[in-house]
């Protein structure tokens, strides 16, 4: 029989206006991989923050190995044997791996000693990592290894992982899972948070499902299908996107040898991109974050105009057009960053509707804004895309991520685009809203628009794309029909192994 490691009993935490956790109780045994499942806003983050000592519960107790456990700060949690790998890394790019790890330690040993320990731990757990490399030179997957090894050096009893695979390629996920299984076999308990249901089925021994801050169910994930898990999470039957594969029309948008500088310090320049998308086609573009996705969207939306001939719309050169000239032609875009790029945080939804719809919806007459018409358009987006908001006058920042995303996508879809480019359309959006957004993209293609979906969620791309390409370090692979692509082939494409040759035709 396995022994219980940590027990949560009636943990409650309320924020003004919302109960994040309502009497949450469950327990994790030693050597168990326990999944925490829930939609966005279900209370997963608050719960793990309480275990890690970042947030203090209003009520309820925790026990760790039979002793009362109430960490007041992360340091206390770490001392008790709880370690956490965050979704967003906290590493200094200008320092090397060993220096970064030393920074997080109470009493760091000498650099040489620490480097030796890092090499040993990374070797023992199959996570190759050179302690002397600069973090700035590491890939996202390698950076995650730094965080994991930082945790492993503390010999944790419980390892909390928040969406660990969102930045990894399928091959890197395999390596991570191998490590996690090894840890489990050594008796370490793992609390695993993820949206990716297949992963949870593959690695977790048990699951606790949260909805609106309450535990609604527990199950053994391997005995359930991904669909069943999703339905437990959402609490209702899922609406799966449906697609009648239709014939494609003419090429609507094409990019020819397009190169563009990085949009930010940490961005990636685009190098000789060639791309075609036809009417009625959904083109999926995969790739690990930071490989030129933002730049590609900016090049298509017109935020970074390039040479006239590098982009053509229905054969007409438009590469030097700005965003509004392109919008008038019907080329619309929804960037990844919702607050501050796709929408202005402090402006109301009405003003945010004007942000991109001014010309195409004719909301401006001789330079004067028709606020009545703008409000009506905003309300139409809210109604048709089921945006949950107190009203159209609410500031964009007051909406939850998923609801704002529905608004941003809806705002573009309702303008009847000829070409729509979206980046990470369902990032951080719960399962039912994600399905709704995907369906709206498919419907749009059905009606004859060309749709380009840039995403890091491969399942999503496989579900909705007709053709699939990958971005790697600013270069794009040739398109492959999405149907029939295997995980290995996709992994190779993401790794940039094959930009010229088709791996699969």
């Amino acid at each position: 029989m396995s022994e219980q490691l940590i027990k949560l009993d009636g943990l409650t935490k309320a924020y003004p206006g919302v109960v994040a956790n309502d009497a949450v109780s469950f327990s994790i045994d030693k050597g168990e991989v326990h999944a925490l499942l829930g939609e966005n806003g279900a209370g997963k983050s608050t719960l793990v923050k309480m275990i890690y000592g970042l947030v203090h519960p209003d009520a309820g107790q925790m026990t760790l190995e039979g002793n009362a456990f109430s960490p007041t700060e992360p340091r206390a949690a770490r001392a008790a044997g709880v370690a956490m790998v965050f979704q967003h890394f906290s590493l200094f790019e200008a320092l090397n791996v060993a220096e970064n790890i030393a920074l997080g330690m109470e009493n760091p040993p000498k650099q040489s000693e620490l480097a030796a320990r890092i090499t040993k731990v990374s070797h023992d757990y199959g996570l190759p990592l050179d302690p002397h490399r600069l973090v700035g030179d590491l890939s996202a997957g390698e950076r995650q290894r730094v965080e994991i090894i930082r945790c492993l050096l503390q010999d944790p009893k419980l390892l909390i992982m928040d969406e660990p695979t969102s930045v990894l390629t399928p091959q890197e996920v395999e390596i991570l899972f191998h490590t996690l299984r090894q840890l489990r076999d050594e008796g370490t308990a793992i609390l695993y948070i993820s949206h990716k249901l297949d992963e949870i089925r593959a690695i977790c021994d048990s699951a606790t499902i949260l909805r609106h801050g309450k535990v609604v169910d527990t199950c053994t994930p391997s005995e359930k299908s991904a669909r069943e898990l999703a339905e437990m999470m959402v609490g209702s039957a899922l609406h799966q996107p449906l697609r009648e594969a239709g014939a494609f029309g003419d090429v609507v948008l094409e990019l020819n040898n397009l190169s563009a500088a990085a949009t930010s310090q940490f961005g990636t320049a685009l190098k000789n991109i060639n791309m075609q998308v036809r009417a009625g086609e959904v083109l999926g573009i995969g790739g690990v974050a930071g490989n030129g996705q933002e730049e590609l969207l900016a090049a298509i939306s017109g935020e970074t105009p390039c040479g006239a001939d590098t982009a053509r719309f229905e054969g007409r050169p438009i590469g030097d057009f700005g965003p509004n000239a392109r919008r008038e032609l019907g080329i619309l875009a929804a960037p990844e960053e919702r607050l501050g790029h796709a929408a202005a945080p402090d402006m109301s939804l009405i003003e945010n509707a004007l942000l991109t719809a001014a010309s195409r919806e004719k909301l401006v007459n001789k330079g004067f804004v028709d606020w009545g018409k703008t409000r009506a358009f905003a309300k139409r987006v809210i109604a048709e895309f089921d945006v949950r908001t107190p009203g159209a006058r609410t500031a964009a920042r007051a909406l939850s991520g998923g609801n704002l995303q529905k608004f941003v996508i809806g705002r573009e879809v309702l303008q009847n685009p000829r070409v729509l480019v979206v980046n990470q359309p369902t990032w951080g959006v719960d399962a039912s809203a994600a399905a709704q957004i995907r369906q709206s993209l498919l419907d749009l293609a059905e009606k004859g628009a060309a749709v380009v979906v840039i995403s890091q969620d491969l399942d999503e791309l496989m579900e909705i794309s007709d053709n699939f390409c990958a971005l790697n370090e600013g270069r794009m692979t040739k398109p492959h029909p999405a149907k029939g692509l295997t995980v290995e082939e996709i992994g190779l494409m993401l790794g940039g192994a094959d930009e010229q040759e088709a791996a699969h035709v």
Partner: protein
Amino acid sequence: MFRLEKRPTPSRGWTIATPILAVLMTMIAGGIMFAILGKDPFEAIKIIFWDPLFSEQFASYSRPQLLVKAGPLILIAIGLSFGFRAGIWNIGAEGQYIIGALCGAGLGLAVYPTDSVFIFPAMVIAGAFGGWLWAMIPAILRTKFNTNEILVSLLLVYVAEHIMAAMALGLLRNPEGHGFPGSRNFKQYEAAFNGELLAGTGMHWGVVAAFIAVIFAYVTMSKHLLGFQITLAGQSPRAARFSGVNPTRLIMLCLGISGALAGMAGLFEVTGPAGQITTSFNQGYGFTAIIVAFLGRLNPIGILLAGLLMALTYIGGDLAQLMLGLPAPAIQAFQGMLLFFLLAMDVLSNFRIVLKKSEAV
């Protein structure tokens, strides 16, 4: 313990209430300061806020001064508010004001003593043009070479002040002035004089222009796409670019508007209340207008009220110096308190104060 919590949407009520609260707090803190200086605080506050408008002894002189002083402040602040909303910081309105005055006055003096109804309007246009030109220097340096417009516009104030002194002593000096520095006085040149329109009110063409600017700015900000783009660019530059706002065009436009209005204000001042170009006819209106713009929350109506309030504290401050012998720095400190409390109170419109129960740890 207190804790600040960000409001999901800014509170409408607090946005209106905070300026009033700030004025009250200034009265209290200023009153304490006056008491420490050995003056009767109630008397001092009354002299600053009440006597300039309603005292039988002073009002006939100081009441018209209210509009005379508020006019240029409002006109300049309205211009600045366009740029400030867009995150374009023109700190050099004082320089644009001087150059505008020199250009407009220069035109008038060049055609002296011709008499025509077109002279004054032409001088106003020349004044606006001069201010616009002076503002284009930081605008072009910013858009072409990415220099910092705050520094460039500020430093150009000192350049403008030297040009002003050189003009007063050289090119524009009154040929009949027996060698004294300073230009001809426009009070003696009817066609170019910006006189009082209604006797005893202080209302001159500059005040009319200020009111028109308030209405123009109000309509632009609330109804025109340009107003939306300006606000958007200030709040989230990236979203503005996505929305198709051209940053270069916006910088040129905002600096141009603020420069032109400051130049106009300078022209109205030099042909009216100041009367002539001297080595120091500028009154620091260009700098004070920055305070007025923020005091009015960059809102046209707010700027109108803030300009009047600021003018009142100036007139009242002068009066308090005269009547109570308060030192000038005390009055400046009092005006500084006003801005300080306003910015401090501003927190309340975006945040709420939450009483935090001390947690047993």
